[in-house]
């Protein structure tokens, strides 16, 4: 790998010299030109630059001031008069919600999963008790942060959110714990350890979370109410989709928000996993029509891990996270990759629609 060869890559030594500024100008320009079209070298150089003390400090400072600014906005949001809070809440940075989620006790969140599903269709049950019946006092059961977030929203805006509540049995304790472990764990790794590959790790694991949510939300093995639900007109694909929607509605914003809190350090953008996550979830649903939820999610999740980890194990050079970041960049970065994920998602959705009646009998599959 010499600087004057026709096809060359940035060596680790050159990357280090580029990072500390000791690379001669003409060589630095070559490096920069090359980085425009080589993901692997971009990853290597990026991590070299981040590793230098000066850049690391600068990045930390920028992130810190950004977080302070966000926290300030959040405080303003909660103290502003109601009229002002509508747009503020709607545009509230994800970071705020993620932090709120991180500080909420787990028990609270699990409790939130058992809020009555009735309210969306039966407002009378909770809001206007029938005359002659004293309503039993009920504890506020939505998690307070979510309540604060939702309250200022006008009713029409609330409706789509409340529609998800019938799907709430999907948000099982085990799955919520997994979700928090991945999302909050990545942020904690970064904050406490200064572990540079936190976002890489997050992006590698994030698509597994909604897939696991599907496995845990519906089917004879996962849902105690499955047998009864399957004998209702809402059983089958409709229940499966409602619960998947609930899983996605919680995991997509939370994990993307967690990704935004982490330094890039060579990893793709925080939102790059959204389409793959959706495509894998739909693939799991489509497969479930053939082999049942459990096997389907195991196959899809295992397939993703194999696609991401196997080349990393085989690839030469660089630290594990650097190689993982490079592999993720190949899987996620750029229009062709994202386009392929979108196409896969569309294909799986079409398959689901075509085979919708196969979900009426999911047992023993």
């Amino acid at each position, binding site marked *: 790998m010499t600087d004057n060869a026709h096809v060359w890559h940035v060596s680790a030594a050159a990357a280090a010299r580029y990072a500390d500024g000791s690379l001669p100008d003409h060589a630095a320009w070559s490096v920069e030109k090359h980085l425009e079209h080589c993901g692997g070298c971009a990853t290597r150089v990026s991590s070299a630059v981040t590793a230098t003390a000066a850049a690391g400090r600068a990045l930390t400072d920028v992130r810190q001031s950004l977080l302070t600014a966000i926290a300030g906005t959040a405080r303003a949001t909660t103290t502003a008069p109601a009229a002002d809070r509508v747009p503020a809440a709607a545009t509230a940075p994800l970071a705020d919600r993620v932090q709120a989620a991180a500080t909420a006790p787990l028990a609270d969140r699990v409790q939130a999963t058992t809020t009555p599903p009735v309210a969306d269709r039966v407002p009378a049950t909770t809001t206007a008790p029938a005359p002659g019946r004293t309503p039993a006092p009920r504890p506020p059961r939505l998690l307070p942060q979510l309540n604060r977030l939702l309250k200022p929203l006008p009713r029409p805006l609330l409706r789509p959110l409340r529609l998800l509540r019938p799907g709430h049995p999907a948000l099982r304790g085990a799955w919520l714990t997994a979700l928090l472990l991945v999302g909050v764990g990545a942020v904690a790794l970064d904050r406490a350890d200064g572990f540079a590959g936190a976002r890489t790790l997050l992006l590698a694991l994030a698509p597994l979370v909604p897939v696991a949510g599907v496995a845990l939300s519906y089917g004879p093995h996962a849902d105690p109410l499955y047998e009864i639900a399957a004998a209702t007109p*809402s059983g089958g694909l409709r229940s499966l989709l409602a619960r998947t929607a609930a899983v996605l509605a919680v995991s997509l914003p939370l994990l993307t928000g967690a990704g935004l809190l982490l330094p890039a350090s060579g990893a793709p953008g925080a939102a790059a996993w959204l389409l793959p996550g959706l495509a894998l979830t739909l693939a799991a649903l489509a497969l479930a029509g053939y082999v049942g939820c459990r096997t389907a999610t195991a196959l899809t999740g295992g397939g993703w891990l194999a696609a991401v980890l196997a080349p990393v194990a085989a690839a030469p050079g660089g630290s594990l996270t650097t190689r993982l970041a490079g592999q993720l960049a190949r899987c996620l970065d750029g229009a062709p990759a994202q386009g392929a994920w979108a196409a896969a998602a569309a294909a799986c959705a079409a398959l689901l629609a075509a085979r919708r009646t196969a979900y009426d009998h999911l047992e*023993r599959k």
Partner: protein
Amino acid sequence: MTTIRLTGLTVRHRKAVALDGVDLALGTGVHGLLGPNGAGKTSLIRVLATVAEPAAGRVEILGEDVAGHRGRVAVRRRLGYLPQEFGHYPRFTVRDFVAYVAWLKELPAARTPAAVERAVARVGLADRIDARIGTLSGGMVRRVGLAQAIVNEPDLLLLDEPTAGLDPEQRVEFRGLLRELGAHATVIVSTHLVEDVAAACTEVTLLDAGRVAHHGTPGGLAALGADPDAPGENPVERGYAAALRAHRAAPAAGREAVR
């Protein structure tokens, strides 16, 4: 009026045959489903609940063929089902749980609160309607299961071992409720308690090894057990044993040939 018509119904669990060419026609009233363990009672109820798929045969419920998706959904709206193992969410209150099932059954929202309270009152849990299911006793949980099954006033009510876990007094009340429901709906109750059948059922179907061993009235079954020296505590029990013996003796050779 015939509400259920089964023709050549065969159900398999992997390789085992659970139901073997069952033909049956049932109408409004309370039907007891009797038989030894493994006779196919639960398999039959699960097919009628549209949860299990038959390997062969035709299942017609309330005038709809449940082999098609459209017919299946139409039947599911008019169905009440209490499975043998009643799964529930322990953190739900009785009211929320029954309302959730009502929602799954597409009950109109305006009617739901009243329907929930009525169903819970009919199973005798009105005073515990806002208790969490996890805090209730086994018999009460069973009654919550019954409440969710009847919340949509079903035309076909399927109860798999509903009296398991009820104490004697509750069983007496439960039989009263069954008779009340059977006046307008087709109620199918699987049980291994012969006295339930004698007390509450208008018709009885005896299953053995995936086949119908006897179909008739509880009185008819009791008549089979008229011989007081035969084993059994009461006429219906003796009739049950006699019908099983007769079925096992007579067509045994033919059944082996079919398999």
